[in-house]
């Protein structure tokens, strides 16, 4: 009889713990009461329409899986993504970096960081970043609305004020105009390395590093559609992916293990 009571008590306690744990878990998961929207953008290893694959695609698949939400994924130009995040027409995007103006309308959950580099034509006679700005004949190619590390932003802003920047909605035309010598430089990230391995670009260009620390990149969340409590839940999901090594494993699919580690452990 006593044994039966003890067993009943244990059973009850276990049930209570399980119920409490399930409630906590349910409270930790984001609100999925409406379909959410996430936009990818084409950018080197982050995402390619041609292959339908990339770091951002893998990341979004895993994030969506863990959230249990219905998320409509589309591919949009980066400038359009920022507009929609600001207006509330879009809930999420990926691999975003912050600045003062973006902080007003977007929240972030960091999951990797990387440095920025200046890719220049060898015949432009640019040895360091400052040489590019000094030579007024040189033009920069850039993706509309992209921001970079502080030194890269300074170069970009200076050249834009001097009308020395040609903008594109995607990366591919920039390589084409760099090879056609219509621009002499562009700012790149590690995701762009595969393109550099093409023999024509590799032969004609050199890479110069900006003297900035790595810049954190993260999940972009629209403050207009996601209240702080929901942002915290999504941030917790991302942190979980970092903590259990999921993100590093995704990056290892695309980069050497050392680089993947350097980018995801910051």
């Amino acid at each position: 009889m006593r044994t039966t009571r003890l067993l009943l008590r244990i059973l009850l306690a276990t049930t209570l713990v399980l119920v409490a744990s399930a409630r906590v878990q349910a409270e930790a998961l984001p609100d999925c009461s409406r379909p959410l929207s996430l936009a990818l953008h084409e950018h080197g290893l982050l995402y390619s329409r041609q292959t339908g694959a990339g770091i951002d695609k893998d990341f979004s698949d895993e994030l969506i899986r863990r959230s249990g939400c219905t998320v409509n994924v589309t591919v949009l130009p980066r400038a359009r993504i920022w507009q929609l995040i600001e207006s509330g027409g879009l809930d999420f995007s990926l691999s975003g970096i912050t600045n003062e103006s973006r902080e007003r309308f977007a929240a972030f959950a960091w999951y990797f960081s990387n440095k920025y580099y200046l890719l220049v034509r060898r015949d432009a006679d640019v040895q360091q970043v400052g040489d590019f700005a000094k030579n007024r004949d040189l033009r920069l190619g850039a993706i509309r609305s992209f921001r970079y590390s502080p030194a890269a932003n300074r170069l970009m802003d200076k050249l834009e004020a001097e009308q020395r920047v040609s903008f594109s909605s995607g990366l591919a035309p920039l390589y084409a105009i760099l090879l056609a010598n219509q621009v002499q430089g562009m700012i790149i990230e590690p995701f762009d390395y595969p393109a550099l391995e093409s023999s024509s670009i590799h032969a004609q260009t050199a890479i110069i590093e900006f003297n900035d620390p790595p810049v954190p990149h993260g999940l972009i969340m629209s403050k207009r559609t996601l209240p702080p409590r929901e942002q915290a839940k999504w941030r917790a999901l991302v942190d979980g992916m970092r903590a259990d090594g999921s993100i590093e494993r995704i990056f290892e699919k695309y980069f050497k293990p050392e680089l993947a580690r350097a980018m995801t452990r910051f």
Partner: protein
Amino acid sequence: MTQPHKLTVLLLPLFAGLLSLALTTWFWHHEQETLDANLRANFDFSVRQTTSRIEQRLATYEQMLRGARGLFDASSEVTDDDFHNYVNALTSGGDFAGLQIMAFTRHLNGHQIAAHIAARRATGEDGYRIVPAGERDTAAPITYVAPATPLNRKALGQDLYAEPFRREAMSQARDSGTIAITPKVTLLMDAAASQPGFAMFMAIYDRGLPTDNVVHRQAGLRGWVHVAFRLQDLMASLYGEGTPGIVLRIYDGVRTDQNGLMFDSHPGTDKRTEGRFEALEYISFPQHSWTLQIRSTPDFERHYSHDSARIIAVAGAGVSLLLAVLTWQLVTGRARAFAHAQTMTRELRESEERMRHMAQHDPLTHLPNRALFSDRLQAALARARRDSTRAGLMFVDLDHFKPVNDAYGHAIGDQLLVAATKRMRDCLRESDTLARVGGDEFVVLLPHIDSHLDARLVAERIRATLACPFTIDGHVLRISASIGIGIFPEHGSDDVVLMKSADDAMYRAKDIGRDRLIFAD
């Protein structure tokens, strides 16, 4: 009165003017920079807006293709009517005015071709055939077209694999699962090399098969839904308002050469003046790009700029000049007022002097007149009376002057009087006074004489010199003088008496034959 230094007078207004001009230049420059920055910001905005309008329009068509894919995904067989009804529902508004054709193209392997043709003919398309004719391993004939206009129906059966650009885009669409666009092409229903256009493809896969990678997508290919546009029509259907004064050219690829030109909003503008701003913006599609060449025209600048810089320049220059003049006025004002007062005083004095001279002198000979002579006589007599000295008074009347005047006229007579005056003056000392008291009557005051003899000597010299002939205007004229002499105090103790004594003596000299001198009694 302290006069400002000449250098100050010159430099101070110059400095004020230059300072004001420098400020004006700074303001003008600042305003110009602000205007330029505004103009550039407006231009940048126009570039972004133009690009965005095109991207959004293309995104709309992408959504339309996704909708059509949804139709095929939703049913195992979509009939011609289903497709027409669906497209007609989509394009019923004017929103898709730029769309020329929406079509479904089936992917066929060689063994499926005959069955496909037969099936199409069975649905009433009696003349349906695959163009170009011939044996093939695969085919991609346009199977449905909407709207089913006679022009669009001409495209039915066209094997799109036969056209390399379209085939390439179709392969891309198949492999990526998203849209792909062709380079610049002529639409199938248009005459060759007429209006530039392009086609946008989206692949459709067999229901129930996986499409998560390229291999699966290639294996499960069912066909494509695609739309085709003339660029001119597409651009005419953009949302929102265009920016005035903006020239837009769209090139296929990243080069801006004539071969790639797909759209020109202002044909022929190259011949006009170059605009101030130009931007190249690239729209990226999978494996393909468009270059948007956007230029401002003078209309753009007129629309967005205003004349404030020019107004500042003109007003500033005017104010600078005014300031310089004002400073000059302030610096030189006292000096100029003082100089002006001095000039006025001098002129007044000269005027007074002139009036006094006129009142006391004979206008012809400039000798003292009777009034002045009377003053001097009284003064001389007073002095002589005080000093107990003598003074002499002579009345000199020219003889035969009237006949000369009558014979040769007043002008000659006047010249004769002037000449006679000069001779008489030459006979006198500086302290003596010669005055004209009548037409041909003169008086001489000798204020300092010791005796009658002094007066006689002077009178004799005068008589002698006047007796010598005068040559006036080529005429030899002869006159003489009758001179009466009075000595103070013997012949008069005051001026009136002395004058009368001398006058009487002169008349006596005249009476007894002229050309002589007589002392008063």
